[in-house]
Every structure is written in structure tokens, then in C-alpha cells.
């Protein structure tokens, strides 16, 4: 080994020492540079999303609020607001609104929201990103005065409370992610219910019971390979098995649910369950493997059975690790898009899911749809939805890291 090193060394002469140090320095720089490039490009990615989620928007109102009342809307009483609504929308529309949610029961805030959507109908005619909004403010103001003199210009955060609360709509100004958030929530819950017990069970079997038999070796290799299968292949499996073959089950037809196809929450959750299972098993196996053997031996020594040992000693000890792994697997499922395209997330539904057999859409699918729309405003909307998604994932990851650190301290 030593001889090999020296003989193969092209810089073995001592005179070359400064040259060798120079080369070493240059490479040090380039290794550092590649790390920096990686970090910088990922920073640009995050910044570009923030850049597109905020900025000036030129907004045209169909009806000027000052025509409706002399004082600003939010200073009016409830009765006055109801009167404005009554006078400005058609009779039929008023009845429909009243049937959906009784107008008498609405708060002033709800009424203002309603008047804005139904009568004033603000529409963004042009939107700017954050950077030009900050550095070319004068130019933007001039454009507005020259080209859209009637319009109003204001700094807009596309990520706002209404965006989270509103249902999906075709208008980028009033659309929201409520439907998609509920869809994501439902699917994640059902996915956990399906995948968690089976995943942990498999991990326990592999770590605590499995001998080195042929079948067990096959199971282990198989799980490792499944973890590397592209997610879109799981989507095809879900389409063929859950959506199509098991149509009567996943559409809820055998339970008497009136649903025409198998493109439901249940199909999506089953697909996602299979997708995150390998990840879940591998993470849980690692956590169980970290449990000291002495703990098991002490338990056996006191006469506990295998199951008692696992249930009372191994699992409680491994639980923080298992939970960390589960959170990581779940955050993968939250961001996954491709398989749900195949399983049939609807691109346009505005009713939030009510159960296992509802059609659905999820946050990443909405981002995908908005991104592929031609109107520029949908880019802003898309960026706002990405921010929501990233905030959710980042919080989950932080929880996982905190859990892991606590776990490490306890063990150390």
C-alpha cells in the first residue's frame, strides 16, 4: 500500500513541493466551489418562488366600490351591506346564495367577501414579480397610469388568507387551495392508516423474527428494490389495480355509494400507501436495529415471551426513530404528484372531499395544473401554492430532525 502510494505519485520529487501545494489549493477551491454552486442554485430556486408569489398587481374592478356606497365597505353595518347585495345581484343569484348559506346568519366579513366576489369582481390585468416591484416601482406606476388609468394598483401577496380559504375557481384572483388542502389531508390520513401498521409490522418481522431463509432474503432484496422504483410506476399499478380492477370497491359501489368511477380518495391512498411502504419499512428497521440487544436479553431473562419483549421494550425504545422515519415518508407522499395524475386526481373540482369515495385533487396536482396554464397570473397563484406546500414540508422535516436529535441524546 505504502510503496504503491509513493511509486504512483507523480510529485515524488521534493523540488515539486510548492507545485503540489498549489494544485492541492486549486482543487480545494474547486471542491468548495461545487458545494457553493449546489447551495446557490437551490437558494435561487427558493428565492424565485418567493419572487413570484409577491409583487404589484394592476387590478380593474367591474364596479367601483365608491358607486356602491360613499363610505368604505368595512365601515358599513350588516343591514346596509345586505341591502347593497340585494340591490346589485339578480334575484335568482341572491336566492341561490341565501340557500347555500343563509344571508341573515353571515358576519359583516362574509358579506364584504361576497360583495367583492359577486359585484365588484376585481380582476388582475397585469402582475409584477417581487424584484421589479421593488426596484422599478416608478416604471410600473407609469405603465399603470398610461395603460390602465381606471385600474387600481396595489402590492399583492398572492399567498393570503382568502387564497387558503377559497375553493378552486377558474379566475386566478379568486381561486384558492381549500379543495386541494382537504384532498391532501384526507389522502395522507388514509395513507398513514394503511401503511403505518403494515410497514411497522414488516419491519418487526424482518428485524425480530426473520431467519436467514430464502423467502426472507427475497423480502429484503425486494423492499430495497421497491424503494428505487420510479413513483410513476406505482401510479400505473394504482390505475390498473385500484382504479380499474377493484372499481366496485374503490368507487364504493358495493357499499351503495353513488360514485361513477374508482378515481377516489381510497384508490389514491392505497397507491400512496404502497409507494411509501418501502421507505417506511427501511426507516423502521433502522430504528429497531438501534435497540440494544441487552434490553431484549433482560426481558427474556425475566421470562417474557417474544411478543411481550417486542411490545413492552423494543417498540417503546424504537418509537421516536420510527416516528421520525414515518414523518419523512409522509412528507414524501405529500409532495408526490406523478402517481396521482395516473390514479386520476381531477384537475377541476370545487367541492371538497367528504369521504373515502369522493373524487379529489391535491396540492401538488393543483400546482402542476396552474403551472401549465398560459395566463401569467396563474404563475403567481402557483408560486403561492408552492409556498404553502414548502411550509408544510419544512415544518414536518423540522419536527423529524428535532425528534431525531432528542432520540440521539437519549441514547447517548
Amino acid at each position, binding site marked *: 500500500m505504502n510503496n504503491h502510494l509513493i511509486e504512483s505519485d507523480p510529485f515524488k520529487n521534493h523540488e515539486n513541493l510548492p507545485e503540489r501545494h498549489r494544485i492541492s489549493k486549486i482543487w480545494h477551491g474547486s471542491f468548495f466551489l461545487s458545494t457553493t454552486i449546489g447551495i446557490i442554485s437551490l437558494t435561487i430556486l427558493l428565492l424565485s418562488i418567493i419572487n413570484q408569489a409577491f409583487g404589484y398587481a394592476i387590478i380593474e374592478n367591474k364596479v367601483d366600490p365608491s358607486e356602491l356606497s360613499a363610505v368604505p365597505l368595512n365601515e358599513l353595518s350588516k343591514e346596509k351591506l345586505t341591502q347593497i347585495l340585494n340591490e346589485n345581484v339578480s334575484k335568482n343569484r341572491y336566492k341561490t346564495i341565501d340557500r347555500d348559506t343563509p344571508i341573515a346568519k353571515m358576519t359583516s366579513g362574509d358579506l364584504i367577501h361576497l360583495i367583492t366576489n359577486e359585484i365588484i369582481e376585481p380582476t388582475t390585468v397585469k402582475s409584477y414579480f417581487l424584484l421589479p416591484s421593488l426596484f422599478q416601482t416608478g416604471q410600473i406606476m407609469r405603465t399603470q397610469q398610461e395603460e390602465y388609468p381606471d385600474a387600481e394598483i396595489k402590492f399583492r401577496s398572492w399567498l393570503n388568507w382568502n387564497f387558503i380559504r377559497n375553493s378552486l375557481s377558474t379566475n386566478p384572483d379568486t381561486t384558492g387551495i381549500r379543495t386541494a388542502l382537504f384532498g391532501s389531508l384526507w389522502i395522507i390520513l388514509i395513507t398513514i392508516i394503511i401503511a403505518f401498521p403494515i410497514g411497522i409490522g*414488516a419491519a418487526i418481522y424482518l428485524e425480530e423474527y426473520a431467519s436467514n431463509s430464502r423467502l426472507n432474503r427475497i423480502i429484503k432484496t425486494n423492499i430495497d428494490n421497491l424503494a428505487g422504483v*420510479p413513483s410513476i410506476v406505482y401510479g400505473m399499478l394504482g390505475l390498473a389495480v385500484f382504479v380499474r380492477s377493484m372499481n366496485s370497491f374503490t368507487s364504493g359501489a358495493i357499499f351503495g355509494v353513488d360514485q361513477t368511477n374508482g378515481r377516489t380518495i381510497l384508490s389514491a391512498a392505497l397507491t400512496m400507501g404502497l409507494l411509501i411502504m418501502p421507505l417506511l419499512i427501511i426507516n423502521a428497521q433502522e430504528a429497531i436495529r438501534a435497540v440494544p440487544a441487552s434490553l431484549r436479553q433482560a426481558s427474556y431473562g425475566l421470562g417474557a415471551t417474544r411478543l411481550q419483549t417486542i411490545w413492552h421494550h423494543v417498540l417503546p425504545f424504537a418509537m421516536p426513530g420510527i416516528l421520525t422515519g414515518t414523518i419523512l415518508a409522509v412528507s414524501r407522499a405529500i*409532495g408526490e404528484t406523478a402517481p396521482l395524475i395516473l390514479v386520476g386526481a381531477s384537475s377541476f373540482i370545487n367541492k371538497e372531499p367528504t369521504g373515502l369515495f369522493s373524487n379529489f385533487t391535491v396540492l401538488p396536482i393543483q400546482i402542476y395544473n396552474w403551472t401549465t396554464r398560459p395566463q401569467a397570473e396563474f404563475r403567481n397563484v402557483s408560486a403561492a401554492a408552492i409556498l404553502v406546500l414548502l411550509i408544510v414540508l419544512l415544518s414536518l422535516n423540522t419536527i423529524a430532525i428535532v425528534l431525531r436529535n432528542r432520540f440521539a441524546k437519549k441514547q447517548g
Partner: protein
Amino acid sequence: MQGKSIESMLKKKPHPGETIAYMLLRFCGIVSVFTTIGIIFELGKEALLFFQMPEVTPLNFLTGTTWQPALGKFGILPLLTSTLITTLVAMMIALPLGLGSAIYLSEYASPNTRKVLKPTLEVLAGVPTVVYGYFALTVMTPFLRWLLGNDTVQVYNMLSAGLVMGIMILPLVCSMSEDALHAVPHSLRNAAFGLGATRFETAVKVVLPAALSGIVAAFIIGISRAIGETMIVAIAAGSSADLTFNPLHAAETMTGYIARISGGDVAYDTPEYNSIFAIGLFLFLITLVLNLVSRKISAKYREVYE
């Protein structure tokens, strides 16, 4: 107690609960095998229907240069070349940068820097791919068009998708390579330093060769990820199955085609429906082989140092 022999007292008592639990846990373990069988069976079944169509033969499928399901032309080459081009572009970014930053993290960075950078990379590896797709279309493509001219770079192009895919895979390649480098025993480094080798010589001539199999495994996993990646190419690479080798042009990849066809409400048992399964099976087999090779290589290096 009397009348019983000691042997019978020491005999293992039957525990029905234990047996049931064992069977249940064993079943959980076997579920994953069913998943694989399900994938192979379902994809194989639909792919078989696809190959039974009169206009399709396996030879045509693998060597045909036109992919136009509407005209009954099913040659996978246009889809395959664009998959390979985007993958190649991605790996040209991810391999050097990933390996470079892995060497920096493992051999140069102070423990504190490492403590910050590694979790950062892990978090960034968790950014959903649809976000990268958005980035490719709204930032990378405009940038490339500004840089190289609107006439040379199409609105949808493979270069943009490939570059962003490279950024996406970078944390994975870096993290796996870093693990491999880190697993090399310190005695090796100390020996090299003792012989007067510089830091760079130690890293590249001693540590790198020792970790080579792990690094190659990371590269292969990276390639497999790039081939199977869907959302970035579906958003940014375009939706025309043209046979082109120019990365500045739009071309649909295998995964992009699957996503586009299944995104609309495709009717069951049409040639298009069956064709996505044939492509899916192809994709599954490619990534399976890559993953198996990677596992084999990395298992070899574990034997040496653990």
C-alpha cells in the same frame, strides 16, 4: 405438581397469541412481495395486449423512429432518446458537482460546517419534484432563452429540464457519495498524511479509490432517478414525440408521455392506454437493473471496510 415430570414442566407452552402475531407480522413482510408481483403482472398483462396489436411487434417497438399512436406507429426511439438526453444533461450537472461537494464535506469541511450543510442538503432533497418543474419552466427556460437567444431555444426544451433535474439529483448524489467517503477508515488518511501527501492527494489518491464502489453506486442510483423522474420533464420538456438530438428543442420523454396520456381521461383498452403500460414496464425494467447493479457494487465495498 406431583406426577408431572420435570421434562413436561420445562416443555415449551403453546402460545396461540404469539403464533397469531407471528403470522400477522409475516404477512406484513410479504405484502411488499405482492406489490412487486402486482407491478410485474399488471404492467406485463397490459403490455402483452399492446404487443398483440397487429401494427406492433417488439422489433418495431424497439427500433421504430416514429411514435404516433393515432397513426398506429409505435417506435419508442423518440421517447427513449429524449429520456437519455435529459438524463445525460442532468448527470453532467449532478455527477461532478455532487462528487465535488461530497469530497468537500467529507475531507475539507470543519465538523461545524458539515453539521449545517448536511441537514440543509437533506431538507432540499425533500423538495417535491413539481416545484423543480415549476422552476425549470419559469426561471431556467427564460434564462436559457435570454442567454442563447429566443430563436435557438424553444419554449419547452430538454436542456432546461435536464439542468434542473441535475440540481434535483445533486443532493442525493452528494449525500450518498459523502456516506461512502466517510466510511473510509481514518487510519488510511493518517497513513497518507504521514507519508507527506497533501490533502488533495490524500483525498483523490487514497480516500476516493477506497470509496469508489460506493460512489459508483450513488451515480447509478442518480441515473435511475433521472430516468424515472416525471414532473420536471412533463412540465418543461415539451409534449411532442419528435426524434431529435438537439437539447434545445422540445421532445417528450417516456415518463412525460405516460403523464400526458393518463392526465386526460384515456379510455381503457385503447392502443394509447396499453402503450403507457408497455413503456411503464420498460421503465420499470431499466430502473430495476440499475438499482440491482448499484446494490451489488455497494455490497462489495461494505465487505471491505465493515
